[in-house]
């Protein structure tokens, strides 16, 4: 007979799944750009389905500056992965809630595995996106051409790109994803212990 997940484990799974819903509200990642002429900084927020400026016209101004180095225009509508991401997140939420409802530990392990794979893939896509914009420059029309110079911001951390210091850090969304994953792991450990109880200590 299948041993179902404990109530605690189910509740944790449900909370973890629900936490992913925050991605529809708060941004996942933030890239700030600071230069001598921009002490107040420009910045972008990457959300589950878009890229927008930290201040009203930041994205426009980043694109305006990027034209000097021949970088492609950052246009959220032209980034296909942003169309897919909301559905991937929705899938994870539904899967997680179903797992909590049905209480089957196998589903929980599968969900966690999917979480890891999709999360990893998400970071991979994000890195590729940064690589693509930072390397595939329009050298024919670029105004500033520096041999060997590329403009890929870091995944996490800071990097000097000409006069700009690019600072890339996780935003609230990423922290919620991390928390959701942590809760999922706790739920899984709890479910595992229920199925494989330890012998009483010291017996």
């Amino acid at each position, binding site marked *: 007979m299948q041993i179902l997940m404990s109530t605690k484990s189910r509740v944790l799974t449900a909370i973890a799944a629900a936490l992913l819903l925050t991605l529809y509200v708060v941004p996942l990642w933030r890239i700030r750009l600071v230069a001598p002429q921009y002490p*107040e900084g420009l910045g972008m927020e990457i959300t589950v389905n878009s890229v927008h400026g930290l201040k*009203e*016209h930041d994205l*426009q*101004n980043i694109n*305006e500056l990027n034209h*000097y180095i021949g970088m492609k225009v950052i246009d959220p509508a032209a980034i296909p992965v942003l169309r897919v991401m909301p559905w991937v997140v929705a899938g994870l939420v539904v899967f997680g809630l179903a797992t909590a409802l049905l209480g089957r530990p196998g589903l929980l392990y599968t969900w966690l595995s999917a979480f890891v794979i999709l999360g990893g893939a998400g970071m991979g896509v994000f890195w590729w996106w940064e690589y693509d914009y930072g390397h595939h420059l329009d050298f024919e029309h670029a*105004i500033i051409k520096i041999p060997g110079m590329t403009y890929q911001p870091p995944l996490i951390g800071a990097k000097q790109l000409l006069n700009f210091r690019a600072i890339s850090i996780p935003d609230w969304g990423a922290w919620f994803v991390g928390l959701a994953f942590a809760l999922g792991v706790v739920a899984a450990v709890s479910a595992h212990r229920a199925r494989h109880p330890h012998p009483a200590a010291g017996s």
Partner: protein
Amino acid sequence: MTIPRFRKLIGALAAAAVASALLSGCTSGGSKSAGLAAGDAASRVYVPPGSYDEFYAFFSGGFSGEVNVYALPSGRLIKEIPVFSEFAQDGYGYDEDTKAMLNTTYGFVPWDDAHHPEMSMTDGVPDGRWLFINANNTPRLARIDLSRFETDEILQIPNAAGAHAAPFATPDTKYIVSGTRFSVPIPQADVPIADYVKRFKGTISFVRADQPGHMDVAFQILMPGFDYDLGHAGKGPSDGWFFFTSYNTEQAHEKLEVNASQNDKDYVAAINYRRAEQCVADGKAKTFPSRYMHNWVDSATRQARSELKTSVKLLDPADCEGMVYFLPTPKSPHGVDVDPTGEYIVAGGKLSTVIPVHSFSKMQAAIAAKKFDKVVDGIPVLNYEAVLAGEVKNPGLGPLHTEFDGKGNAYTTMFISSEIVKWKLGTWQVEDRIPVYYSPGHLMIPGGDSKKPWGKYLVSLDKITKDRYLPTGPEMSQSAQLIDISGPKMKMLLDFPTIGEPHYAQAIPASLIKDRSLKYFKLSENKDPWVTTSEDGGGIERHGKRVDVKMIAIRSHFAPDNLEGVQVGDTVYFHVTNIEQDWDILHGFAVMGNTNAELIMNPGETRTLKWVPEAPGVYPFYCTDFCSALHQEMQGYVRVSPAGSNVPLMANVSKKTAAAMHAGAAGGAGTR
């Protein structure tokens, strides 16, 4: 260390000690500052690079016709705001958008003499919304918006000549008020000047000021033919009253220097403007034909517009009993300043040996008891002793203007003895005096004429500079001096040169303005009829002899930047939109040989420049405001062909648009 080297070092140290002693001796010996060591004063006015000052100070430019903004305590000049004078530096008064600001019924008047900045107030306390200022020569009042530091509105004052006594705001900024310096025939007429006493009159105008874009003369009060000099609104208990100084009560019309200095006492006019409002509401004012212009910036298009107004409500004191009283005041009084409590009315009798202070409560008692010495043109003259609160004895020579620190002290400039005198309200005793360099006119304490002075600094606005700075030929800048008034004794902190004649100034804590300062105009809200919002949205079009060019400016190019098909005899209008939406990214536009100025376009703004080319050729244009690393590349050409040429109208907007344009050019059509 060897002995000879050690000796050498000692020698060097000794030499350094002597040098520093000489230097410091030189500083203290040569300095004219009172009481503070130079280093101490320097630290008080030092604002480290990248840090902000504590106050914005708005200095009138006098005969420069502008307002200059300084930061205090550093004395750094941070902005020139053109008001009544054309300003080639940003095209104000030259470009098609702002020209209308300088329209008057005399035509386009590109210069004036701006004297008294006045801050808008809420409940008698400066609030940092607007700054008002007067034009002396061709009477006008202007409103400057302090979120943009731009002149937004100018109203001509009819039936007035020499609007010196202006603008002074009521505590709620409902009105700003303007008195005429010169009495003139009202209505204007070709009469012998010798008919002065019979025909010449003064006016005091109440201008509605609290509705941006709708400044208008609410009513005018017809006054006897004296010279009206300065004014101030009452506050607190005296709220609802206005006080104006007058001189030339002798009614001289020649050699006023002597002939207007005969009477021992002239008058302070006390005007109950609530009573005036009542009389106007009761229909006691005449509708008087008067032509005057109202110019304002349309907030949507940002283009200035003008309208001609044709009448005012004119109120004769004889028809409105209880509206105006005269307070006898020695002698040719200049300033009239109301203390923060609203009780004391201080007059600066510039030829007087005392500073007379009137009491508002005693004035009311005297009016109730009808203590009138006489009646002049229907205006009762109150008894001097009955209204006097006290006199400051032996204050110095030539008292002009007084401001207050909010701690019970008053500070008065002494033009002739070239000093500032601190005295106490109530005791009328002189507490301190400090020499200033030289001949101060106005003085300014931030909020010092309001209900709530920020009584930390005082600025003396000096008329004569002489030896204060490196000489610059016969004409030198005028000078301001910053004085610390936080302690019992005044301390001189700083000299700084000023542009034009810094006639008067007002200052306000930076916190009341800086966070509301606009960074750029939103392109999405630009309703200029000639706006171009996108890279390829520009073009060129012809309507008879008029050619309109729509163009964008963005780092670091104009689009279009090649134009052909313009002909001699055409009038070309360049409508250039700066489509940047970024802080402090301005572009300029100038075309060779234009008998006009340049354009400066703020981010998100459209400006229009008129150009009438007179000879065929190729004319370059370029960006004049250093905008970016490729600023020098931001340029283009206009080809001008002889009249009747068949060169097609062309603008290289984009490859696609240009192709379409060339295809359509055969038919003579341009692109939009």
